[in-house]
C-alpha cells in the first residue's frame, strides 16, 4: 500500500488514479500517524517551496515523515516540488527542506541568447545515469512531462539517477537508499510515468 501525502499541495488525485490504473493499492492521507506508519510514501507538490514546507509544518507532518523515512527507512518518492522538498534548502525560499538528500535547489539558468525558456515546461527525454533502481531496467529512451523553474543540485553525484539536457545536464531524478525523487510529473507522462510508478510500486 502506497500512502500519498495529502497536504493540500499537488496532484494527489492524478497520482492515485494512475496507481489505481496500474493495480497498485494506494491511498491519500493527511494523518500524521498513518504517514508515520506507512509502508511506502509518495510526496507530491506543485508551486512554491516555502509555502509547501510551511504547510507541512503547520499540519505537523514533518515528524511523521521523518519517522517513516529516516527511522523506519520506508521508500519515499518525491514528485516535482516534492522532490525539491527532499533537499536541504532552496534558492526559491527561506525555509529548510526535509534534508533527506544532500542537495540544494537552484533556479534553472539558461545560456544567454538561448532559445530555452524558464520555466521549463513540456515533454523532455531523460538520460539515466545507470545508478539507482528507478531507471535500472529501461532500455528505450523515456520522456516525461516537466513543469518547473528550479532544479536539484546534488552534492554527491552518486545520488543522481537521471539527468536532462537543458543548457547543461541537469539532475531530474535522485536516489539514495530509500529516498527517491523525480522532477517530472509521472502522473502526466502516461506510459513513461506509469513505468516509473510501477517500478517504485514493486520495490521491496
Amino acid at each position, binding site marked *: 500500500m502506497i500512502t500519498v501525502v495529502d497536504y493540500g499541495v499537488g496532484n494527489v*488525485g492524478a497520482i492515485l488514479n494512475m496507481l489505481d490504473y496500474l493495480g497498485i493499492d494506494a491511498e491519500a492521507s493527511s494523518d500524521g500517524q498513518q504517514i508515520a506508519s506507512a509502508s511506502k510514501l509518495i510526496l507530491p507538490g506543485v508551486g512554491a517551496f516555502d509555502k509547501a514546507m510551511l504547510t507541512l509544518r503547520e499540519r505537523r507532518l514533518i515528524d511523521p515523515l521523518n519517522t517513516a523515512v529516516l527511522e523506519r527507512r520506508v521508500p519515499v518518492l518525491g514528485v516535482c516540488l516534492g522532490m525539491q522538498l527532499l533537499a536541504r534548502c532552496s534558492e526559491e525560499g527561506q525555509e529548510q527542506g526535509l534534508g533527506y538528500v544532500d542537495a540544494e535547489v537552484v533556479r534553472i539558468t539558461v545560456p544567454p541568447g538561448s532559445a530555452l*525558456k524558464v520555466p521549463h515546461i513540456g*515533454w523532455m527525454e531523460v538520460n539515466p545515469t545507470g545508478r539507482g533502481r528507478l531507471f535500472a531496467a529501461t532500455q528505450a529512451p523515456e520522456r516525461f512531462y516537466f513543469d518547473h523553474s528550479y532544479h536539484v543540485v546534488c552534492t554527491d553525484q552518486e545520488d543522481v539517477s537521471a539527468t536532462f539536457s537543458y543548457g547543461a545536464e541537469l539532475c531530474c531524478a535522485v536516489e539514495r537508499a530509500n529516498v527517491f525523487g523525480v522532477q517530472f510529473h509521472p502522473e502526466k507522462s502516461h506510459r513513461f510515468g506509469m513505468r516509473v510508478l510501477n517500478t517504485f510500486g514493486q520495490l521491496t
Partner: protein
Amino acid sequence: MRKRIIPVLLVDHHRRLVKTIGFGPRTYVGDPFNVIRLFNEKEVDEICVLDIDASAQGGRPDLGFLRELASECFMPMAYGGGITAAQQCEELNRAGIEKFVLGRSAANTALVQDLARTFGSQATVACVDSRMRGWVKSSCSPSTATVPEPATTSSSSAPWPPICPCRRWPWAEPEKRYTLRRPCVPVRRLPPPAVPLSSLGGCEPCWSITPACFRWTP
C-alpha cells in the same frame, strides 16, 4: 520539434462531449471521462478540453468537474471556456490544468501577458474561430476583427502557437467518434507560429499537429 498529438474535446454546459459541424449542429459523442480514459490508453501527448457554452452562457469554468477530469488524465491538459481573469487560471492550475485557452478573452492583451508571465507563454493559448476562405471572424462579433498581437514575455520571443479551429471538411461525418484536429488550410492573415485545426471526423492517432505543418506567407 517533435510532433505532438493533442485531441481537442468539446464539452457543453451539461458536461457532454459533443462534435459540431461548422460551429452549428451538435452530435453527442460521449461522456468526457470515458473518452479521456480512452485517450490515456492511446497515449496522446496532451488533451485540450473546450467548454463551448461557457462564454455564451456567461458561465465560469466548472472547477469541481475540471479537477476530476484532470485527475483522470494521464497527460497535461489544456482548458478553454469562460476564462476572463488570471485568478481563474490560478484556481484551474491548482485543479490540475496546465494550459489555458482564451477565446474572446484573447483580445484582452493585459490578461494574455499576465498569464504568460505567471504560467509561461507555453501555457497561454489564443483560440480564434475562423471559416474557410481565410477571413477571420472574432468569436464576439460578426464582423472581421483583427487578431491580437502575439503576447511576449520578458524572457522569450514568440508565445505558444494559437489554436485556430477552422470550418469542418464538408464531408466529415457526424457519427464518427472523436474530434481530432489537423491542419486544413493555411490561414494567411495569422502571424506565425499558428496551428490550424479542423475536424477530422474520426480517430486518427497518426495525425499530428505542429507549427511545421503550417506555412505562413506574408
